[in-house]
Every structure is written in structure tokens, then in C-alpha cells.
């Protein structure tokens, strides 16, 4: 159920995620080790174009990568195919994009 286009999309999104994941893990470690409170973290992210662009890119890459991965698993484990499989792929991608985008807006919108 993977043609060349989906395969390339999934590989590229994986490649794009590598720096995102590394920086994200670094951010978590620095925040936890530094003992930053939620308010202090938000004060750094809100109004920051850099964090908005960083996490928006991350969410887009995850949405593409995970939607294609779920598509493959659903087909191989449940035999789903055709329109139903297409719908699942797009729904998974849209949900991740929507939820992730909402989270990004929540932590980056607001006073700088």
C-alpha cells in the first residue's frame, strides 16, 4: 500500500524530524534540569516566532510521517484498502495536524 510517492514522503518527513526531535529532547532536558515552571516556559515561548516556526514544522512532519505509517499498519493488520484506507490516512494526518497545531498556537501565541 506504499507507492513511490508515499515512500519518499515518509522518508523525507523522517529526515526532517531528526533535528526537530533532537532539539525538542534538548529543550525538555534543559527545562527539567533548570527547574523551569510552566509559567516560565510559556513566558519564553509566547510571542516567539522562532518557537512557532520550529514546532509548526515539527507538527507538519509528524502528521505526514505518522499518517503514512498508520496507513501501512492498518492495511497489513486489518486488510483495510481502497477509499476506507484513504480516509483513515487523511483523517489521521488531519487530526495530528489539528491537535498539534492547536498545541503550538497555545504555547506560542500571546504576549512576548
Amino acid at each position, binding site marked *: *500500500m*506504499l507507492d*513511490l510517492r508515499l*515512500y519518499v514522503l515518509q*522518508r523525507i518527513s523522517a529526515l526532517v524530524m531528526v533535528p526537530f526531535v533532537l532539539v525538542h529532547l534538548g529543550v525538555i532536558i534543559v527545562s527539567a534540569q533548570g527547574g523551569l515552571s510552566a509559567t516560565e516556559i510559556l513566558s519564553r515561548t509566547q510571542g516567539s516566532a522562532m518557537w512557532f516556526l520550529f514546532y509548526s514544522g515539527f507538527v507538519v512532519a509528524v502528521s505526514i510521517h505518522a499518517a503514512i505509517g498508520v496507513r501501512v499498519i492498518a492495511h*497489513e*493488520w486489518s486488510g483495510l484498502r481502497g477509499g476506507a484506507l484513504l480516509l483513515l490516512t487523511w483523517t489521521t494526518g488531519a487530526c495530528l495536524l489539528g491537535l498539534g497545531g492547536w498545541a503550538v498556537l497555545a504555547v506560542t501565541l500571546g504576549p512576548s
Partner: protein
Amino acid sequence: MPSITRTFTTTVRRGRPDGHFNETFEVPARESQTVLDVVSWIQQNIDPTLSYRFSCRVGMCGSCAMMVNGMPRWTCRTQVKKVLRNDRLEVAPLRNLPVIKDLAVDMDPFFEKWIEAEGFHHPSRSREDPIEPVSPENPGRVVADAGIECINCSVCYAACDTVTGNRDFLGPAALQRAWTLLNDVRDAARPSILEAVSRSGGCHNCHSIASCTASCPIGLDPMAAIAGLKRETALSCFRKSG
């Protein structure tokens, strides 16, 4: 005739497409006994209606492949003493292919996928043209030679979990054939092969589990061939868009 001092239990999966059952036989143990010997002994001495397929008995034709204790193997080249588990042997038809009767499977889907993968020669010259010399050292020839000895036994196809989960997947053997042709300087259909292996059942569905490579009776490496196809199709994709 050596005296029979020991027997072992062999379970054979039997039946037709509409259902199967397991039947157990006590088979006398012999020196240098192969799994094909066991199946033939059952057919000749206990139940002549047992259906199975074989031809050469020496690992040349690839027609006697079956599941032996859960693994696909050439039964003519599998020594019983090497696969017996607690004096028990289980023989079943090849996985991933429809059963015709007992241990004989329908190979049509397997060969249809060879055609689907463009796994046949596309001549670049006619019979009137002189034969094109191909150096054995030619890099493409070296790559093609690595997979050219496949005898279509379907052991890799039966071992492949991706085929089990995805009935459209072309499978290791067909893709390996496509890879050998892609690297054959005498083959004239490179774009068609790349297009055929890039469709929804193509090489990109392979999870690189490597059951094909681990189970190939002659030590070929279909997984490496599929990796080569993934690389070539991805590069051709960027060349097209570039």
C-alpha cells in the same frame, strides 16, 4: 534392508481450499533421510491419496518446497535429523499461496507477480543483430549475477511476512528478478521496470525483515535487491522532479 529401530511422529496438514486438518503418521527413521523421503514414504506406504509436488529430488527444480516445522524449505535438501523437534516433524503447504490439495499449492499468484514486476527479458536487439558481448566484470553484470541463480521455488515468498499482511506485495523473488533485469545491459525496459516496482504493491512495501534472505536455500539476498530497487526508484523520482 536396515532393521527399523526407531520411529518419529510426522504431522501433515491436509485438505482442500475449503478447509484443512492435521493428520499424524508414525514414520520409520532412516539414515540420511530427507523430509521429501518422509512425505513419499507416507504416500507410498500409508495413504496414496496424499498430494504433494516434487521432481528432481536434488535441489535443482525447486518444486518440492513446503513448510517444515513452520519454516519454508526444499524438502529434498532438508535432512530430517536437522529439523526434528522432540522426535516430531510438522509438514504443511507453502505459506502465502492458495492450497490446491494437501501439500500442493497453486503457484499462479507467485508467477503472475513476476509478470507484474516486469520480471521478464525485454530484448534490446533482434535475432538479426550480432550478440552483444557482456563483460563479467561489468558493474551492472556483477550486481545482476548476484541474483540470477533464483529457480522460482517460492521459499522466500512463503517466508515473507509482508506478503502475508499485504496480498498486493510483489514479493522478494519477483522484485529480485526485476533488480537483475534492471542491471542487465541487454534489457531495454529500465523505465518500465522502475514504474512497475513503484506501484502500490511494489518494492517500497518491504519492511526489510530479511526472512527472504535468511530462508533462501541457495543463499541469495533478495532483501539487498529490494533495497537496490528502493534506491534506484527514489533517485529516478528526484531526477524526474529535478
